[in-house]
C-alpha cells in the first residue's frame, strides 16, 4: 500500500473521529449493558438448564458414541461426509489437517490477501459472499450432526444428501463466485449476491429435508445418579435385577436355590462383615466386574462380557456399603412403594412393578431358569409361564399368591414331588409385601394408578373418589 492511500485512510478516520463519540462514557456504557446482559443470561442458563450429569469414565465401553463439544460438531460431520468419498475419503489427513489448516491460514492472512483498501460492503461482495456461504454451511453441518450417514438398512441416501447440502452446493457456489470475479469480470454485484443467496437457501432447504426424512435416532439417555440417595437406589435396582438370583434380596443367602447349575452351592453371605470388612470398594467392584467364574458367579463388567458399566458397578458397591456395612450410615431412602391407605387398591405401575423388580425379576427374565415365567411387563406377568396363567383376578388360589405365601405347589402327577417351590426360593418377602400382592390380585389387578383409584374404596366421604358403588351414600 502506498503512502498516499495510507494518508487518505488516516485523514478519513480523523474526520470520523471528529463527528464521533467519547470512549468514556459513550462506548463503555454500551459495553457494560451487553456484558451485564450476558451475565444475566449465564445465570439463567446455569439455573434453569444446568449441566447434564454424565456417566463415569468406562474405557472398556467401546460402544460409546463419542460426542465432542457442540462447536466442534460441524468438523465431525464434515469428516463423516468426507469419509464417504471414494478413494479420496481414505486419505484421512486431507480432511482432518489440510482443509481446516488451509482455511485457518487463509483467514489469518486475510489482510494480506484482500489488499484492496476499500471497506464498504458493496465493494467487497466476493469475500462477504464466500464468508456467508461458509458460515451457513457450518451452521447447517452442526444442525445435521446427529443424523447418521447410513440408515439402519444400509441405504447411503442420507449421506449423499448431506454431502450435496454440506459440501457440493457451497463448493460450487464459491467456485462460481471466484469465476465471476476473476474470469468473467463483468458480472454484476446483483448476480453474485443471488448466487450466494440461492446456494445458502439450497443448503438450508436440503438440511431441512435431511432432518425431516431421516429422523435422528433416539439415544437411550439413562439418568445418571449423582446424589448419594440416587446412587444407592440405582445400585439397589441393579442389584435386584442382577444379583438377587443368587445372593437374595438382602445378601443373606448362604446356600443358592433355584439357579440352574448352582443348586445347593454354599457361598459366603455378602451382607456379612466377613465379606464387607475384608473387601474394599475397589476389590468389590473388581469381584462384580470379573465375577468368580470358577465358583459360578458370572462376570458383570462390560470389560469381561457382562452388561454393567463402571458407573453401574460403582452404584452397586455404594448400595452394598450403605445398606449392609455397619460402618456406613445410610441416608433416608424412598420406600420401595408408597404405603397404602386403608381401602386403597395397589396398582401395577406404582406398587407391584417395583416389588417385582426387587424380588423376582433377577430370575424371572429371559434366559434364566424360571419355567418360562417372565415378569418384566404387566402382560407377561398375566400371561406367561408353564402354569399360565399364574395370576387370575379375584382368585385367592392363584399360583403366584400361593408360592409367595410360602406354599409350594405339588406336582399333580406325583404329589410327593414339588412342581414349584415357594418364591422367592432363597428367602421370603415380608407379610406387608405379600399383602400388597393379595390386595392387587383380589381387586382385579389394575395396571395404572388411575385404574386403581377407581377401584379404591374411600372410607371418608368426599375424599376425592368418584363414587364407587361399594361406598354407601352418606346422608
Amino acid at each position, binding site marked *: 500500500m502506498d503512502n498516499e492511500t495510507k494518508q487518505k485512510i488516516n485523514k478519513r478516520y480523523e474526520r470520523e473521529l471528529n463527528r464521533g463519540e*467519547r470512549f468514556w462514557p459513550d462506548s463503555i456504557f454500551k459495553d457494560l449493558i451487553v456484558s451485564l446482559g450476558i451475565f444475566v443470561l*449465564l445465570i439463567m442458563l446455569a439455573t434453569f438448564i444446568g449441566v447434564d450429569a454424565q*456417566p*463415569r469414565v*468406562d474405557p472398556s465401553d467401546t460402544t460409546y458414541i463419542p460426542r465432542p463439544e457442540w462447536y466442534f460438531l460441524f468438523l465431525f460431520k464434515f469428516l463423516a461426509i468426507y469419509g464417504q468419498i471414494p478413494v479420496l475419503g481414505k486419505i484421512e489427513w486431507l480432511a482432518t489437517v489440510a482443509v481446516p489448516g488451509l482455511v485457518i491460514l487463509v483467514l489469518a492472512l486475510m489482510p*494480506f490477501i*484482500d489488499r484492496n483498501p476499500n471497506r464498504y460492503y458493496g465493494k467487497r461482495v466476493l469475500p*462477504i459472499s464466500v464468508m456467508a456461504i461458509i458460515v451457513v454451511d457450518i451452521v447447517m453441518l452442526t444442525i445435521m450432526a446427529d443424523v447418521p450417514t447410513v440408515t439402519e438398512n444400509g441405504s447411503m441416501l442420507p449421506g449423499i444428501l448431506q454431502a450435496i447440502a454440506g459440501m457440493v452446493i457451497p463448493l460450487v457456489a464459491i467456485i462460481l463466485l471466484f469465476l465471476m470475479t476473476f474470469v468473467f469480470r463483468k458480472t454484476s454485484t446483483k448476480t453474485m449476491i443471488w448466487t450466494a443467496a440461492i446456494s445458502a437457501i439450497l443448503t438450508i432447504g436440503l438440511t431441512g429435508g435431511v432432518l425431516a426424512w431421516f429422523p435422528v435416532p433416539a439415544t437411550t439417555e439413562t439418568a445418571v445418579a449423582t446424589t448419594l440417595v440416587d446412587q444407592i437406589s440405582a445400585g439397589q435396582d441393579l442389584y435386584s435385577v442382577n444379583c438377587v438370583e443368587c445372593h437374595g434380596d438382602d445378601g443373606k443367602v448362604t446356600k443358592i436355590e433355584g439357579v440352574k447349575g448352582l443348586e445347593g452351592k454354599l457361598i459366603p453371605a455378602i451382607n456379612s462383615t466377613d465379606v464387607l470388612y475384608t473387601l474394599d470398594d475397589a476389590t468389590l467392584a473388581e469381584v462384580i466386574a470379573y465375577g468368580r467364574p470358577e465358583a459360578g458367579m458370572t462376570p458383570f463388567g462390560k470389560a469381561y462380557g457382562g452388561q454393567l458399566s463402571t458407573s453401574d458397578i460403582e452404584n452397586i458397591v455404594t448400595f452394598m456399603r450403605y445398606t449392609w456395612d455397619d460402618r456406613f450410615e445410610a441416608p433416608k431412602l424412598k420406600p420401595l412403594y408408597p404405603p397404602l391407605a386403608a381401602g386403597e387398591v395397589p396398582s401395577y405401575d406404582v406398587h407391584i412393578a417395583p416389588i417385582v423388580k426387587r424380588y423376582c425379576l433377577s430370575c424371572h427374565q429371559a434366559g434364566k431358569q424360571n419355567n418360562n415365567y417372565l415378569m418384566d411387563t404387566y402382560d407377561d406377568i398375566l400371561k406367561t409361564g408353564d402354569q399360565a396363567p399364574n395370576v387370575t383376578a379375584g382368585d385367592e388360589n392363584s399360583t403366584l399368591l400361593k408360592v409367595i405365601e410360602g406354599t409350594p405347589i405339588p406336582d399333580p402327577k406325583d404329589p410327593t414331588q414339588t412342581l414349584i417351590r415357594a418364591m422367592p426360593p432363597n428367602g421370603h418377602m415380608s407379610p406387608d409385601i405379600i399383602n400388597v400382592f393379595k390386595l392387587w390380585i383380589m381387586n382385579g389387578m389394575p395396571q395404572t394408578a388411575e385404574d386403581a383409584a377407581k377401584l379404591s374404596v374411600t372410607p371418608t366421604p368426599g375424599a376425592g373418589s368418584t363414587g364407587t358403588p361399594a361406598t354407601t351414600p352418606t346422608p
Partner: protein
Amino acid sequence: MWKNVYEWLDERLGLNDLYKNLLDRPEPKGNWWNTLGSAALFLFILQGVTGIFLTVYYTPSPDHAYDSINYIMNGVAFGWLIRGIHHWGATLMVVVVFIHMLRVFVTASFKYPRELTWLIGIGLFLVTLGMGFTGYLLPWNQQSYWATTVGTQIAGSVPFIGDFILKVLRGGSDLSALTLQRFFSAHIWMLPAALAGLIGVHLYLIIKHGESNFPSKED
C-alpha cells in the same frame, strides 16, 4: 477530604493521565456490534474467576476428578451455579468470539492499520477453542473421555509428525492420568497465560489505532 486523597493518589499514580489516555478518547460513532470484543473480554474474566473457584474442589486425577465434580454440583454451596456459569460461559465465549470475528471481517476492520490486531485475533480464536477442548476432558466422564480420544486421534492424523503430536497430547499412546494432568495444566496455566498475553497486545493495538469507523460508501 476525598479531593485531597484523590490528588495525593493522582500525584503518585498519574490518574489524570490515565483517564485522558485510556478513557477520554475520541471514537467514531459507536455501534452495538462493537460491543462484542469487550463482551469476549468480560467472558474471559468471568471464566477466570469461576475457574479459580472450581479449582478449590476439583482434583485432576482419574480417581477423583469425577467425584470432585459431583461434589461441586451437590455438596458445595452454590457449586452448581459456579460450574453452570463456567460451563455455559465457555459455550458463549466461543460464540461471542466467533461473531466478533465475523463482524471484524464484514466491516473489513482488519485492513490498514489494523492487520496485526487481526493476526493476534486469530491467535485468540485458536486459543479459545483450545480452552474448550482441554476443559472438556476435565470432568473425566464418558462423554469427555471418548470425545478426547477421538479429538486427539484427529490431531494424530497429521502426516509424519502425527504420532509425535498424539503422544505429546496424551502423554503416552493412550488416554491416562498423564493426559488428564496435561490437559488440566494447559487449561488452567498455559492457555490462559497465552490468552491473557495476546489479549494485552490486542487491547494495546486497539487503543493505539482506535476503533475503526463503520464503513460507508466513502470507504
